[in-house]
């Protein structure tokens, strides 16, 4: 317990450094702006700005503080386009449109925005507090993990991914396999054998992480935006003078608390981020409500629950990323890749070896949440103006940012073709209802998965039973089995009742 408080104290020393404090605020502000753009969510925002943040040559803790600020800032800003425009920035904001947009149509736009800001703040803060206590505990437990335990952990991560993300588990699994395959391109570090490079010198060192991220998330999003533009125009609702009252907050206080808890714990599960968290929170609230007839027509509970949950899940998703090196969501997979770019390997040792990064990040999230609430209540009008940026200028801007980012880091014109090709590929995957998060998770975890498997089998001299040799790994395999089987049984039972 003492370790937590001294860790937090040292973290605040890092986060309150004037430069880092500026980065927290700048990240939150930029994140909200990006999140408020119609159709652009946290994952695209972080992906597009990552190479630029990397190219600026900050210290690792400063860069990660900036990127994390953009992440939860965008999670925060996503509600603006959901409520006023009925266009969610990403899958995690879909639930917000269900009751948020009807509230705005009923002449309560101001109230919907302020209520969701408060719910987001409580959800975010709640999950950072839990994270400060859970993180170090999980890290000190995970220090004892052997390579074979890590293999089990990966299996669990991919099992929960396949079972909980997306409508079609086979497509999710295939997406993860594609990511793992992309990660296997390049020279094998253990033997120096080139794999799948076809003699192309540009990919001998592997496909650059930044190129994959920008391609799959930045460029694919760009193509998607152009496709949507042909579809027709959208109507933005005006912000009015209504505002959330204490009475409203008292009415939804348990809803927000439940949403926060659900969000945090679903966020921790590997691969399942805001989209699952907000859907479960909304569903729970609707079932728990005595009178659920207003849900979908502008019920405050239907807005507060998913907003608390998706911000809480942003914090929850950081826990496995920081402590195990296994990202809890697509966006944290990108943050993990960013840390690897800085030669920082997230994992159980990070809290002891690089405390300035682990604790600095956590402390910056406390500050960021407060800052977001403060800038969001009065400045919501400014952020809402983002919705009126003409798409014909926004779209080229995204492409230019992506090109600047890739070129300034890699300085290789070959990569500019590569991001375009990956963008087309990502757009096809998206159109065919593959979710892209598993691809990036597979790509980030590929090296780690293979290394641990090979290390485990080196230890056992090729004996595969080492994989099921410890209680940790057996427990993880059982969990993996449960996470696949339970949803199937629940689904079948529900269908029988219906």
């Amino acid at each position, binding site marked *: 317990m003492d370790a937590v408080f001294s860790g937090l104290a040292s973290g605040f020393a890092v986060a309150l450094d004037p430069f880092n404090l500026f980065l927290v605020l700048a990240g939150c502000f930029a994140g909200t702006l990006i999140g408020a753009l119609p159709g652009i969510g946290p994952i695209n925002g972080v992906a597009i700005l990552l190479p*630029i943040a990397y*190219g*600026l*040559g900050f210290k690792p803790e400063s860069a990660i503080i900036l990127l994390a600020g953009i992440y939860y800032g965008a999670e925060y800003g996503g509600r603006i386009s959901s409520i006023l425009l009925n266009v969610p920035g990403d899958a995690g904001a879909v639930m917000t449109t269900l009751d948020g947009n009807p509230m705005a149509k009923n002449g309560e736009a101001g109230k919907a925005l302020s209520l969701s800001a408060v719910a987001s703040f409580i959800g975010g803060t709640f999950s950072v507090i839990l994270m400060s206590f859970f993180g170090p505990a999980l890290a000190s437990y995970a220090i004892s993990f052997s390579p074979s335990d890590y293999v089990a952990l990966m299996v669990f991560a991919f099992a929960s991914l396949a079972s909980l993300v997306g409508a*079609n588990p*086979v*497509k999710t*699994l*295939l997406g993860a*396999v*594609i990511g*793992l*395959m992309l990660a*296997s391109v390049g020279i*094998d570090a*253990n*033997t120096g*054998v080139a*794999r*799948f490079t076809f003699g192309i010198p540009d990919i001998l060192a592997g496909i650059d992480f930044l190129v994959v991220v920008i391609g799959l998330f930045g*460029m694919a999003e*760009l*193509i998607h935006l*152009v*496709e949507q*533009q*042909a579809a027709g125009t959208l109507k933005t609702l005006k912000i009015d003078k209504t505002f959330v009252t204490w009475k409203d907050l008292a009415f939804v206080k348990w809803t927000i608390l439940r949403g926060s808890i659900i969000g945090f714990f679903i966020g921790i599960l590997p691969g399942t981020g805001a989209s699952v968290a907000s859907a479960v929170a909304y569903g729970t609230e609707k079932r728990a409500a005595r009178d659920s007839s207003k849900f979908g027509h502008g019920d405050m509970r239907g807005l507060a629950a998913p907003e608390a949950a998706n911000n809480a899940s942003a914090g929850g998703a950081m826990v496995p990323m920081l402590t195990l090196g296994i990202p809890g969501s697509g966006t944290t997979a990108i943050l993990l890749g960013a840390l690897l770019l800085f030669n920082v390997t997230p994992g159980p040792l990070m809290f002891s070896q690089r405390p300035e990064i682990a604790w600095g990040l956590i402390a910056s999230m406390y500050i960021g949440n407060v800052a977001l609430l403060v800038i969001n209540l009065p400045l919501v009008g400014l952020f809402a103006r983002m919705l009126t940026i*003409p*798409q*014909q*200028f926004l*779209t*080229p*801007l995204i*492409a*230019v940012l992506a*090109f*600047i980012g890739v*070129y*300034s880091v890699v*300085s290789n*014109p070959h990569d*500019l*073709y590569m991001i*375009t090709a990956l*963008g*087309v590929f990502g757009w*096809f995957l998206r*159109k*065919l*209802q593959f979710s892209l998060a598993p691809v990036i998770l597979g790509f980030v975890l590929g090296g780690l998965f*293979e290394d641990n*498997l*090979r*290390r485990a*089998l*080196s230890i056992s*001299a*090729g004996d595969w039973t080492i994989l099921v040799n410890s209680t940790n790994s057996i427990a993880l395999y059982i969990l993996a089995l449960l996470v696949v089987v339970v949803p199937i049984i629940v689904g079948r039972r529900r269908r029988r009742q219906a």
Partner: protein
Amino acid sequence: MADRLFAGVLLLVVIGYTVIAFTVIHAPFQYDPLGPESWPRLLGVVGIPCVLYVLAKPDVASFGLPLRTWGRLAALVAMLLGYGYLFQPLGFIIATVAFCMALSMMLGAKLLPALAFSLGIGVVGYFVCTELLDLNLPAGVLTFLR
């Protein structure tokens, strides 16, 4: 149908990947029990049934896009490739102005606003990135900038 087409192409790629994993990749000396070839083999063995499943049970019938949208998307990809091709030789400013003009006009911007926007992004963007943020961007034919 769209699903099947895509899965068919993907199947060829994954089979190619697996065949390479089983035949080409080989370490001259085995350092560890698995070597560099086992992991890609494992991925191929998991991947092929997944693709076959998607091939057998497709769930996206068609993209449902009108021909006009396909044309626009093709134009977009062509512009992106052209932008990438010209980025280094022409330099950031000229390539960006040309690209922004082309794309914003295609998306329906009027000539003058598009020109103002493109020049703004190209010139202001160049100096913000190179002078303020210290990022590396090509000067290209405008050699006096170097």
